[in-house]
């Protein structure tokens, strides 16, 4: 699949941090009535540009239905229902955009691009290595988790019986997962040590990073949003 628009991993990192902090903590009034929808929309647009149509459309549908609900139905309900719907609305509107942006970062950045970006930002080497191992770990663990779920299905450890025993359900998932994680971590470390990861010299990175017009646009947006945020909240 040919990618016709590239976004620099540094921009992606800045966007992830910005969207996560601002959508969670900004007040829903004044300037932010206009800024928040823009921030909600950015992950959707980026996902569409990177041809992740399925997840982008799920996100958009959820976003639209929640906002419609907020303005049409929510004002007319009371009591427990009101608080319940308020909870769901604020979780979806405040947390979801950040999660989607994080998903976008994880799914469209290769480990070596991320490492290159962090090196350009002069992060310490220990931090870069641990972050990149985490990046490698998430997809691996998700595959392991699928296997464990299947093993549980064969043992009849699914659905209703597990809902009744939440502690057991946790235990049966976590123990095999922890064993996998430590085994994989150990083998990964051995493989990377035999390939010179610990060499003290400066590491080369063949990923060429470059800012394009779209990066400048997105970065400017972030800076403007941060300035308004600081102005509104702290001054």
């Amino acid at each position, binding site marked *: 699949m040919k990618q016709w628009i590239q976004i620099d991993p540094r921009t992606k990192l800045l966007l992830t941090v910005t969207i996560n902090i601002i959508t969670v903590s900004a007040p829903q009034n004044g300037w932010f009535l206009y800024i928040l929808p823009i921030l909600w929309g950015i992950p959707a647009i980026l996902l569409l540009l990177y041809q992740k149509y399925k997840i982008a459309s799920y996100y958009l549908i959820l976003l639209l239905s929640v906002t419609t609900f907020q303005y049409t139905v929510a004002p007319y309900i009371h009591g427990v229902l009101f608080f319940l719907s308020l909870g769901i609305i604020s979780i979806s509107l405040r947390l979801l955009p950040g999660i989607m942006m994080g998903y976008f970062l994880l799914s469209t950045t*290769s*480990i*070596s691009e991320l490492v290159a970006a962090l090196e350009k930002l002069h992060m310490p080497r220990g931090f870069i290595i641990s972050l*990149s191992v985490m*990046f*490698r770990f998430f*997809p*691996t663990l998700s*595959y*392991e988790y699928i*296997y*464990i779920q*299947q*093993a*549980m*299905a*064969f*043992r*009849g*450890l699914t659905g209703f019986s597990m809902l009744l025993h939440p502690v057991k359900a946790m*235990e*049966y998932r976590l*123990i*095999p997962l922890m*064993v*996998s994680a430590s*085994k*994989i971590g150990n*083998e*990964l*470390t*051995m*493989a*990377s*040590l*035999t*390939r*010179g*990861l*610990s*060499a*003290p*010299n*400066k*590491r*080369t*990175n*063949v*990923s060429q990073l470059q800012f394009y017009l779209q990066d400048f646009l997105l970065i400017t947006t972030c800076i403007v949003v941060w300035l308004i945020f600081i102005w509104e909240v702290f001054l």
Partner: protein
Amino acid sequence: MIQLQNVSFQYQYQSKKALNAIDLEISAGEVIVLCGKSGCGKTTITRLLNGLIPYYINGELQGTIRLANQDIQAMEIHEISKLTGSVFQNPKTQFYNIDTDSELVFTVENFGLPSYEILNRKAMMVEQFELQPLLQRNLFHLSGGEKQRIACASVAIHNPPIIILDEPTANLDNEATAQLGEMIAFWKSQGKTIVISEHRLHYLQNLADRFVYLEDGEIKHIFTQKEMLTMSNEALYQLGLRAIHLEELMPQHDRLLDQGARFKLETLSYFNHDFQLKIEGFDLPFPAIMAITGHNGAGKSTFAKALTGLNRKASPTFHINNVKFRKKQCVQASSMVMQDVHHQLFTESVLAEILLSMPEPNEELALDLLALLGASELKDAHPLALSGGEKQRVAILSAIAADKQVMIMDEPTSGLDYHHMRKFANCMNILRNQNKLVFIITHDPEMIALCCDGTIELSQGMMKDITLFNKQRV
């Protein structure tokens, strides 16, 4: 090139020496195979040569090890890794990156070579190992053979004089194994020194110069290539080694007792954006032990998952003795022993594990089952502290305890020595007596000859052939 002088090693927290007074000299350009039973110390030797011992794995090391006339005790692990390239057994965990391109250049990036030099070398590797179709791909989506090809290219990119392979074919089919053999032959022609720790010997018979046979951490004998070729399969079995002469393996024909019961599968299909599976309905005697064979990527695991009703998009229907099983009942009637068995062990003792599977826990019955597979002494052990073969038996036991009729085994004998493979085969014979139908996904012709009643061959998601060994075609 490599000298081991009076080398002994004992892993931390273990009471026995893993290696005892090893003396071995390997000259430049030689291809050496380390063989022997599981736990004989062959993997430990590979770890000495790539520096993981003593730099990462703790223990007590004695003696001297010299690589290219340098004492490894005086070197750092990254200096050792300039001399050696290591390919490991598990393709899932030997990659640092997720995409193939970054993985290829990872080593040379670490050594800080200039960018243009890295790209030159990458182009060279792509040509030598025919990697063009594998570039820009997600490593998780490659087949076992393709992963191993990337692994070979990415450890050779810095042109080390020594290549070390630790059971590289454990997850490969016969064709991919043969391709690995070709890569080793290519390195040999370049004059590299190659050390391979391996159970499967047949693909190395014409490549290796010497076979070093280890037992309990000591070198018992060194066979030359000529000596090895003249040994019979039986003589190899005596040493606990796998067969070399695969063409001599003959399945036994008289095992399958046709008691009239049948297993019928209705046509099973499954579509996904990049794979389709369409298996014509078939009919088998019940009970039976059937091998599912085919290349990496032929759809063996997909078929197994679809058959047992695990796959959401497939709706299997099968009949056992005219009793119909639909999707939900299929999951209830079947069980799978996975390749990574630790995924399916949940409790803190073997007995509890078996009791958990029983519809109505019955300790007496559980103890009987343990005795049946000769595992009585394991009953209080922690499942995760067992050896690989023992874990496998516990998983099989839980499946019997749950009264499952259909069982799937996913590559159960990859990486097993002759003795353990034999034990597994005996276990299958017990399952046949217990009235089970077992499907074994496998690439192991020796195990098929020892215990299977027939094979189901898959190719590109379709059924190519079903054979029953008592010469009756289905």
